[in-house]
């Protein structure tokens, strides 16, 4: 008995083709978002005035994951070392070997420490509303997921995010 026409037709494998193509597209997208670039919304006051409290989206370059080629002044996105599963954006203020001065409150105790090997010192731009290395100490660079390259949305406020370092004016 001949097979029904559907099975002998050359489009009989189409469902399988659609399935594998969908899977491949999904995995390729995932690879792109975790290894090349991604766009993520941000919230919270810790990076004011670089990033607004609400409604910003930033472009993150994944090349810099695990702190590869990260320099002082870069804004990085990383897995929180304190709250598991939370992604945080802060600015790198010291790399391994640098000395940082930790000031508890203005005019109060002040201590200097050296950032250990493979670690960095991250601080939010808005010092008074940021939980950062001042609380949890030097952060291992391996938790870094990428570098924040630009603020993309809202489109009218789009800008590149630079290292914020300015030469000291001599007077």
């Amino acid at each position: 008995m001949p097979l029904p026409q559907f099975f002998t037709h050359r489009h009989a494998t189409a469902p399988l083709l659609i399935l594998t193509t969908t899977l491949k597209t999904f995995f390729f997208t995932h690879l792109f978002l975790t290894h090349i670039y991604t766009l993520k919304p941000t919230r919270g006051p810790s990076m004011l005035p670089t990033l607004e409290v609400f409604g910003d989206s930033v472009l993150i370059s994944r090349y810099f994951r695990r702190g590869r080629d990260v320099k002082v002044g870069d804004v990085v996105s990383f897995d929180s070392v304190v709250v598991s599963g939370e992604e945080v954006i802060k600015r790198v203020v010291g790399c391994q070997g640098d000395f940082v001065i930790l000031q508890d409150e203005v005019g109060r105790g002040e201590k200097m420490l050296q950032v250990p090997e493979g670690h960095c010192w991250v601080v939010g731009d808005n010092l008074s509303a940021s939980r950062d290395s001042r609380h949890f100490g030097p952060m291992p660079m391996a938790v870094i997921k990428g570098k924040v390259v630009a603020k993309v949305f809202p489109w009218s406020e789009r800008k590149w995010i630079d290292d914020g370092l300015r030469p000291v004016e001599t007077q």
Partner: protein
Amino acid sequence: MFSNRIFSALRNTAISRNVTAFRSTPSGQFFWDTSRKLLIIASWVPAVVFFNENVGMVTFISGPSMYPYLNTNYNESQSKDACWVNKWKPAENLKRGMLVSFWSPAHPEVLAVKRVIALPGDKVVTRAPYPMPTVDIPCNHIWVEGDNKDGTKTLDSNYYGPISTSLVQGKITHVLWPWNSAGSIRWWEFKGRTKVVKGRGED
């Protein structure tokens, strides 16, 4: 149709005619088939990467830090134990005695394999290079140590302190090679020599 007209225009270019001629030769046929197969294989690379980073992968243990449990033949040969790493939700359900792989805090591009000794809330009696005699493990951190009795053979939490669970990449579940030690890792049978005051009743 417009697209049909574009395709026929493309088909009549000199390059296109040369390609067609090349494909009809035997070597051209072979080249065409091989590149087609290679492209199909390459299109699955993202899936393999996804599997290796989120489901599990085989890893080879280097160094003596987990001797004698892993790399039991370390002193006799250069062979490395092959282990299966479960990478699904690595930071969850960590228990004392489990073997975990994590990014070394001091070397961000190096994966280290150590044993979980203490969980958040525990108090640990530390060993030589650590500056304090005891340490309380903070929230979302674990204390990891190598199995080697010689403290100079393992670079662990006694050097760099408690590590964040965000660094943990996977749990070692099975030894695959060599055959005589192959099998699932019975981490619950581990009796440590490090003194740990357990902080939470439920663990």
